[in-house]
């Protein structure tokens, strides 16, 4: 259980840091093209806030099942935003205003998605919390 908690924490802290990077990159785009920056900021802020709240909520939980339920909920948020990110960051709409930035965010989104899905499975397996609690 302790190692699982560590993995979940690492995932959420990773998404906090990377989404913050995304927020900064999105903020830089506002002056270039606000229409591209708006969804960019929305996606990264969603990932940032849900990860941050997740870390805070999970701190006080020791009961395995409850830990599983709460962690899966927050991982889903990040994974689903990652799913959207994989779809939209590589698009021309974002590449034209920030080629390197959109590539970075595409990779980060893919990690959010794949790692998140794996963690959901791992947490479900160990804590017996439902996959969609």
């Amino acid at each position: 259980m302790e190692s699982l908690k560590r993995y979940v924490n690492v995932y959420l802290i990773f998404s906090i840091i990377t989404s913050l990077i995304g927020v900064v990159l999105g903020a830089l785009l506002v002056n270039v093209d606000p229409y591209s920056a708006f969804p960019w900021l929305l996606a990264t802020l969603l990932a940032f806030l849900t990860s941050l709240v997740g870390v805070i909520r999970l701190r006080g939980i020791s009961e395995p099942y409850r830990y599983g339920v709460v962690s899966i909920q927050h991982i889903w948020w990040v994974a689903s935003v990652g799913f959207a990110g994989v779809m939209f960051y590589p698009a021309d709409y974002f590449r034209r205003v920030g080629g390197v930035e959109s590539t970075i965010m595409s990779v980060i989104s893919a990690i959010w998605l794949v790692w998140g899905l794996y963690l959901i499975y791992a947490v479900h397996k160990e804590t017996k919390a439902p996959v969609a609690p």
Partner: protein
Amino acid sequence: MFLDLSAIYTTAVNERYINYPLHLIQGVKPLTTAEERKYEWIDVMGDYSLVPVPEEALRTTTAIFFVFTGVLACIAALWGGAVLGLQYTLRDMVVVAIVGCLIQGVIGFLTAYMGAASRLSTYANMSWPYGRYGAFLWGLALAGITCGIGWFAVETWLFGIMMHDLVPDNPLMSVGVASIWGGLLMMTTAAIGIKGIAFLSYLTVPFWIVLASISFASGIMVGGGWEKVLTAQPAQPAPFGVGVAQVVGLYIAGATITADISRFAKSRVGAGLAWFVQVMVVEVFFLVGAGILVLAMGGARITEALLAVGVGLGAYLLAVLGQWTTNDNNLYSGALNFTLISPVSRRALVIILGVLGTAVAAYVGFVAGASFDPFISFLTLLGSFVPAVAGTLIADFYIYRGLYKKIPVTERYKLRIGDRIPEINLTGWISTAIGGVLGTWVITAGIPSLNSLLISLIVYSILAIVFDKAGVHLTIGKYEVREYGLAPKWAVRRVSEARKR
């Protein structure tokens, strides 16, 4: 003679284990909780269709929020916003959307709270004000036809149109053919039940919110920028009340049948808030975003805007997942209604109704093609009569049983073995008929759907209280609740099969 100390010790430990909440002291999960021991129902129809949801199947407020938002996240919601964009300026559109959603939010809060309190579906709850057969018949009109086959067919047809717009030259993407494979796809999670629906919603909802926001932003950019949106004048101006009625009508059926999902909620207030927040935040965002798209581009070209900026796969997934998360709920809810009289399981009903709805969608797709008119007509129909059912339910639960009878909230619609529920309760029938007819066709002022709801609410409250004081019971027949809940008698054979399992 030897005293068997081990037996005494074991008995003492067992007694202690049962009587004391050791898990609270030691952090150990008990083998059986008090609630689980009390659970005495046999779920013959599946997914607790006609029995209360047990403690261990309850879900968090977040899960309920995701499922509700998954229902909302569909192309039809965006098209509803597009209708507003044709009729109002940006400022007026925001006000109309907020007022309409506020009405939906309050209605949905009350029905969701009701479902979480009773842990029963909408149709099971309707057994009290309408009687058991009344619940089926009114539920059939409300959800069996409109939400079940009807709304499922409309959404499936819309799915076909969306696919055809995205890939017009592919025969697999013609409106009719796409309706067929789309409808079959949507049946899968509905057949699995709440687990499948919740899973898909968790995956889809944040994805959909982000993709929809890209569609709005890119649409504004392609259409000429924010300045154009701010100064744009509506193509077909309409009075304030018309827009509010459209917004309320768009989702009033959803607000009425929230109990189908909220019965799985751990928290009653949480269930109500899950509905209220998703309506006030997410629905307003969808409606206004789609309306802005119309002001900028002249039409609700949601997926076209995505395609124009190169988010091709995202556009397909937006359409597929959006319709899927909405339509599986439509079908799920429709099938729940039919369980009240059906000899077959909920899952079998989902498949039967799903095939029928898909066939209707495909037929309309092959014959009518891509006409918008059936959708507008359907919105109007929904906005007119369904709210009267919500008014009756709210009046019975909160006013008659709550304020008048002073029954505690968890006892108002509590199913108990041995209780007798009327087969037909005419009080609910009368109030709904009066509310529906007066609110829709007689009173022309105000918002028709709200008129219907308020009239049925007032009429039911007055009738129920007056009849109760006079000792008059407008009921026909009695149904004795057995361990299989509200399941029909011909389901008895299934009961014995379930017991064997």
